[in-house]
């Protein structure tokens, strides 16, 4: 009897210990990866020159990443201009209007599936539709439009969660004042759901910044020219082929002589991700406090 109990005790200790180790293992893997990238990349970034000089290209990839940063910002702006309104509107439709019918089921089915499609497929689509069919050529516009479809499910889902968390009583009190549905949504529902929607936007910025497969296929990999936001020739907006930071990192890492620079680009990317995560956590913390006060 005593040995049986001590056996169970030993099993318990062993199992719980293993679970604990696996939890901490993941944290240490993360710290190791980030530490490794920072160790090799941080000195280059801290010289600041790297961030603010244009790239020169070449085998060793001299110069900095100014144009890549610019291209990344353009891409974020370009894709969010398209994806944010459509995504938020779609979420409003699904939470506030959608009746239980076939079309709604179809819409939900489409969103589920869009979320599961790998980015390389979005890239192929962007290449076939925007680059070739609409004749955008390799351009940030083609990349931005492909990416905007990719982040659409992210924005819709998070916005939907945010809208659902607005208490039903808010809507009823507003409607009871004789105000119509759009006024209720714009004046009552959207402001209360704003933090949640913002979280969705930040999450999708993270996806856009980290995306590379789509852009290699749809935006190309031109490096030395400064990307323009608008131009007088077709397709008028974001017409230039350009590398974002993630795409640039890919090309740097795969050419042996430029690998040292890839670490610096990696540090910049990780900083962006850290910053976005910090913002998201601040928002959810503020949100929780607000709810607690209520």
């Amino acid at each position, binding site marked *: 009897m005593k040995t049986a109990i001590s056996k169970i005790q030993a099993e318990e200790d062993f199992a719980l210990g293993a679970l604990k180790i696996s939890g901490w*293992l993941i944290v240490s893997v993360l710290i190791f990866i980030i530490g*490794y990238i920072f160790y090799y990349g941080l000195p280059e970034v801290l010289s600041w020159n790297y961030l603010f000089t244009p790239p020169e290209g070449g085998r060793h990839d001299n110069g900095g990443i100014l144009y890549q940063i610019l291209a990344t910002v353009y891409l974020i702006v370009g894709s969010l201009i398209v994806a944010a309104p459509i995504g938020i509107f779609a979420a409003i439709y699904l939470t506030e209007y959608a009746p239980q019918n076939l079309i709604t089921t179809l819409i939900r089915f489409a969103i589920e*599936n869009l979320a599961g499609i790998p980015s390389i497929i979005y890239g192929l689509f962007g290449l076939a539709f925007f680059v070739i069919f609409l004749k955008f050529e390799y351009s940030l516009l083609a990349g931005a439009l492909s990416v905007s479809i990719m982040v659409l499910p992210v924005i819709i889902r998070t916005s939907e969660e945010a809208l659902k968390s607005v208490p039903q009583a808010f809507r009823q009190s507003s409607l009871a004042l004789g105000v119509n549905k759009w006024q209720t949504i714009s004046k009552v529902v959207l402001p209360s759901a704003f933090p949640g929607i913002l979280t969705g936007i930040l999450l999708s910025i993270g996806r856009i910044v980290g995306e590379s*497969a789509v852009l*290699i296929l749809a935006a190309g990999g031109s490096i030395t020219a400064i990307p323009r936001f608008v131009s007088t020739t077709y397709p008028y907006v974001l017409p230039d082929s350009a590398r974002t930071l993630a795409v640039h990192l890919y090309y740097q890492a795969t050419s042996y002589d430029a690998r040292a620079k890839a670490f610096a680009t990696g540090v910049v990317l990780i900083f962006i*991700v850290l910053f976005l995560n910090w913002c998201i956590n601040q928002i959810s913390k503020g949100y929780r406090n607000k709810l607690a006060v209520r």
Partner: protein
Amino acid sequence: MKGFYQLQKTMQEIKIKKYFDKKEKRFWSGFVNLFMEQLFFLSACVAVISLFLITAYVFYNGFKLFQFVPITDFLFGFDWDPVTQKLFGVLPMIIASCYVTVGALIISAPLGIACAIFLAEIASPSTQQVIRPAVQLLSGIPSVVFGLFGLAFIVPLIQDTGDVAGLSILAAIIILSIMILPTIISISEDAIKAVPKELKESSIALGTTRWQTILGVVLPASSSGILTAIILSIGRAFGEAMAVKMVIGNTQTMPDFSPQTGFGLLSLARTLTTNIVGDIEYAEPGPHLSALFATGAILFLFIIIINATSYVFLRRASVKSNS
């Protein structure tokens, strides 16, 4: 007196004007209301249209290949030489994709589920506050950064073990297993947390230990959710392109499954996704480009099957938690 009438008249006019203003305002707000409803509906339809267009374009462009080569040569061909011999066999890539995915799963499913159990059942709140942001951060790190880490750290490590290239299926498996961990952890954790407290308490009341409760009650009760997590991460691993491309070597031959290469682990390979990324830079319009779309179509088919399976499990999980 005259002044009084004048005043009355103006007041009446103001009243009438106000009435019409209000009516106009009402009309406009009613119009905006209806207009916005239609706009919301159209926005929601964008998702449907996009999915339709993506499916149509990828499959249509892929099917063009079969004007040049029979579909069996494509699916079961061993050789990929699109430029000189015009051979478009993707069987090695299908095998490599499956190999890499299964390998990543073998490492990260046990680890991820263990971490999820730890987070949901054992870890103190302060520990949770360290691990959860770490998992969140891990899911946010771009795939090229993982690729860079693999290329700079894991590949040389494998290279040091013997006379091998370093770029290998094993490197891809390790990188992928790190990348899919957040998916497994977060979805499994939700599933484990959804297990009713009464179930656990009844088990503890019978005198079982925490581990026995976890093994005998918590895991079986959350099994559909955990399965969903695993299936979703299969989709993620199967579809990952950039990180794998950077560490797998991208040779077009069949992986070498002999024991000398650790049954393929140390062999170079090319997956479906890396085929597209690798060849797109020099593919000419015509059979080569179509073959890349056809590769995408095969990948898409696999993903559709994986998603459909996860949908079935997800539904079963929700039915279970409702009953």
